[in-house]
């Protein structure tokens, strides 16, 4: 180690704090101007931590399940009655769906319409909830060899969760629909009216920019719209409700508070991401 005189060492020690404070401001500017470097650093840290989180989140999942089970015991009777009723209703819908599917297939055959390709998906485990007061995102563990790409759509079993915003070698970050930077083109299923779903960092994102005279009504189902090529049309997003102060918000269908697994769908849409951030799809199989 270099030997320096005591006064000099004291002077350096006194300088460290102001220099680091200045470095913080420099970081803020760097993060604004050079998003690629910041992203690379984030992805590297996420890749490093995801295996650890993967191990640690398992016992937490077990405790979560235990808490849910105890809570569920109290409402077992009411829940059972509700499920019976729902089951009866769903059976009816099942018959309707089967009839419609048969009819649909018959009509497609008549018209010679090719069937929609079934999109491929991978299922990934949510290992960390990196949400703060200012950003809503989760980290998923994707395994070392995967075909996850930026802009892919993430769904849980009920509906839209968000989209992939960063991809590392074994991790991916999903920007949730509730994040303040999330903007998703949606449409009201009943009327077909288009709108933008804007995250607020709160639990329910808001609807914005609908056409005049097509105001969404509480209870309307909201689905994604294929506008702008960001999302495939018709993915369930949530239900319209009136929030505090008369704001029109959407109650997400996905259980964003308890994400355990998400499906990352590959619809082959480049989305609203800038072209340089979109990697062309990798050819699968055959090599």
């Amino acid at each position, binding site marked *: *180690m270099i*030997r320096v005189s005591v006064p000099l060492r004291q002077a350096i020690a006194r300088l*460290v*704090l102001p220099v*680091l*404070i200045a*470095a*913080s*401001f*420099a*970081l*803020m*500017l*760097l*993060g*604004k101007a050079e998003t690629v470097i*910041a992203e690379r*650093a*984030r992805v590297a*840290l*996420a890749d490093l*931590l995801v295996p*650890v*989180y993967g191990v*640690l*989140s398992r016992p*937490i*999942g077990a*405790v*979560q399940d235990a*808490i849910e089970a105890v809570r569920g015991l109290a409402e077992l009777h009411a829940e059972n009655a509700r499920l019976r009723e729902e089951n009866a209703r769903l059976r009816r819908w099942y018959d309707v769906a089967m009839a419609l599917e048969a009819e649909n297939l018959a009509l497609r055959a008549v018209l010679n319409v090719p069937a929609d390709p079934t999109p491929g998906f991978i299922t990934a485990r*949510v*290992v*960390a*909830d*990196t*949400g*703060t*007061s*200012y*950003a*809503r*995102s989760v*980290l998923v563990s994707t395994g070392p060899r995967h075909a996850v790409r930026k802009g892919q759509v993430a769904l849980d079993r009920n509906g839209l969760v968000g989209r992939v*915003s*960063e991809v590392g070698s074994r991790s991916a*970050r999903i920007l949730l629909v509730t994040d*303040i930077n999330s903007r998703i083109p949606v449409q009201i299923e009943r009327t077909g009216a288009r709108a933008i779903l804007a995250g*607020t*960092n*709160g639990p329910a994102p808001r609807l914005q920019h609908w056409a005049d005279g097509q105001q969404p009504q509480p209870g309307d189902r909201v689905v994604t719209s294929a506008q702008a090529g960001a999302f495939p049309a018709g993915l369930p997003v949530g239900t319209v409700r009136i929030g505090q102060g008369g704001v029109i918000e959407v109650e997400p269908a996905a*259980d964003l*508070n*308890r*994400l355990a697994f998400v499906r990352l769908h590959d619809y082959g849409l480049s989305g609203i991401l800038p072209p340089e951030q979109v990697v062309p799809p990798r050819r699968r199989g055959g090599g």
Partner: protein
Amino acid sequence: MAAGLPGRTVLQRLDLAAHEAAPAALTLVLVFASCLPPLVPGQSGLLPSALPASVFFWTLYRPRLMAPPAVFLLGLVQDLLSGAPLGVNTLLALLMHATVLTQRRVLVRQSFLIVWIAFVILASALLALGWVLRCLLALALLPVLPPLLELGLVVAFYPAFSWFFVRLERSLAAP
């Protein structure tokens, strides 16, 4: 150089280094732990961030063990993990460190309640500054409610973190 005093074995030096790194390492673990999935649905993360409480506590009682570079790195890790704009948490943590250093002599002799109140005031001021900075960086008026909830949690968790840190501090004091 301090570790190079004559008569110290390698093990003793390692022990000393472990002592010196303990507070920052513990804070790092707590920062990582704050991102584990929450036990009760609705929270964001398992714990509120331990960064303000930890920087406050260690700067107050053992400033040598929470040096500015450690504070900076801890803030940076927090920023990188949360995917938020870089630099905000590093700045807030450094300002917390600097402010506590100036008030150390007065605060260190006070009771726990007074120290907690001082933490509440300081944390409120810094989280407010954080909100302003993030609004400036996003060029938008961000919602106020989530940061207020965060402040509530950070303040409410201070006694728990403090209890935990006191245990560690005592074990460090009596090696």
